């Protein structure tokens, strides 16, 4: 099993979710994060003063998948999340040693 973490632009969440459903991914965990990277932050105006805000709202997806599915999932996310602009995000693949479903105790593949 692998864990795929993807940092994407928030307004792309629906597209990515639908795309993943399309390839049979029926579970994921999502959270709001702030990102810092190449993409220039935006300026904010506060009573005549300008501030540079360099942390940009991003959405983080965590998806546990079978090792065999990794490439497909990665490609799917890339297509759906891509706007060809800096800041589209990153995808990280991490190893997972075990997955357990709380309710049943099922492990591995059965658990997801």
């Amino acid at each position, binding site marked *: 099993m692998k864990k795929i973490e993807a940092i994407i632009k928030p307004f792309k969440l629906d597209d990515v979710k639908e795309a993943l459903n399309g390839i049979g991914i029926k579970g994921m965990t999502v959270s709001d994060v702030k990102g810092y990277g190449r993409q220039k932050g935006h300026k904010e*105006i*506060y*009573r*005549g003063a300008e501030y540079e805000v360099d942390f940009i709202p991003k959405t983080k997806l965590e998806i546990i998948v079978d090792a065999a599915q990794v490439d497909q999932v990665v490609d799917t996310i890339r297509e759906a999340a891509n706007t060809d602009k800096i800041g589209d995000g990153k995808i990280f693949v991490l190893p997972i040693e075990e997955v357990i479903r709380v309710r049943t105790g099922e492990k591995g593949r059965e658990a997801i």
Partner: protein
Amino acid sequence: MINTGDTAFILAAAGLVLLMTPGLALFYAGMVRSKNVLGTILQSFIMIALISMEWVYLGYSMSFGPDVGGVIGDLSWFALNGVTTEPSPDYATTIPHTVFMIYQCMFAVITPALITGAFAERVRFGPFVLFSLAWAVLVYNPVCHWIWGAGGWLGSRGVLDFAGGLVVHLTCGAGALAAVMVVGPRKNFGRANFMPHNLPMTLLGTGLLWFGWFGFNGGSALAANEIAAVAFVSTHLGGMAGMAMWTLMEWLRDDKPTTLGAASGAIAGLATITPAAGFVGPNSAIIIGLLAGLCCYFAVSFKNRLGFDDSLDVVGIHGLGGVIGTVCLGVFASKAVNPGGADGLLAGNPDFLVTQLFGIMVVGLYAFIVSWILCKVIDMAIGMRLDTDSEMVGLDQAEHSETAYNT
């Protein structure tokens, strides 16, 4: 003899001015960081308890009680002794004296609350309470007596202040300036951004303040008469013109008008029209509001360059607004509008402008010096500032063991 219309009007006005303190609390709290929300709100709220108490046992008598040499009221009205539902012969003669007393109480309450924006996010609650109490007694009460008290020396010299350009806005602006100088900037000021944590809260506060201001300025006519009409109209026009100008400046200079800019401009316009509200016509009120938006916009931007941490711009908006408004009154005042008022420069009476300038100088200097001494003494004695750790953790937890938002 008591007039029901006037009484209804001033009671409503008193309620409106009371509402301004919670309004101010939200206006300020929206601009601080989320760890300081409650502390900021409480700094305004607590004034309702602290100053109202002081007002009954000290403030009202010092401010409006029988005059002593033009400088202060004696204490014969201690505990409102003699302040009954009979109209006072000197003030608001068509409503119960107690109504005038409670209406004025609301002004005394909000004035020190206004100062809190200057040293937001960094002072200890205890010393702050002490400072505010002393400030009310030594700055607000005397200045209030000089200008509005029967026999007050500045009033007798012809200085006019319809609803508090000097008594409220200049005193709190000068106090704010002094306090910032003593207390110093927030940790990491200039390095970190101190972004407002909740601007809708600030806009809500703006709405409540604007609403309350009708009671603040309109009620200062002390009757539901033509003067109240004049004051009400100029208040609205001053506020809207301030908003128009500030957003316009942002539009021209940053090519983006902002919500906080609109709110700031409105408050600047409302503060600036305050001393002139009942003495000038609508077109003058609009000009005054436009000037307020213009000057305060630049003052605030300029402050940012100065690296002077008047955190929520009490000096740049209230202090400056009080000054501009008082000067403009000297220029635009017209007996055609208010026979009980004065003629200003444009009505061919430069002397009145001079009188107003004199009033600004006296009140500004007095308020600044006394505030500075008070703040310095308290700071040296017990320390105004939070220690660094507490400032990092925030007022809410460090000073009040509370959290504003829990999920």
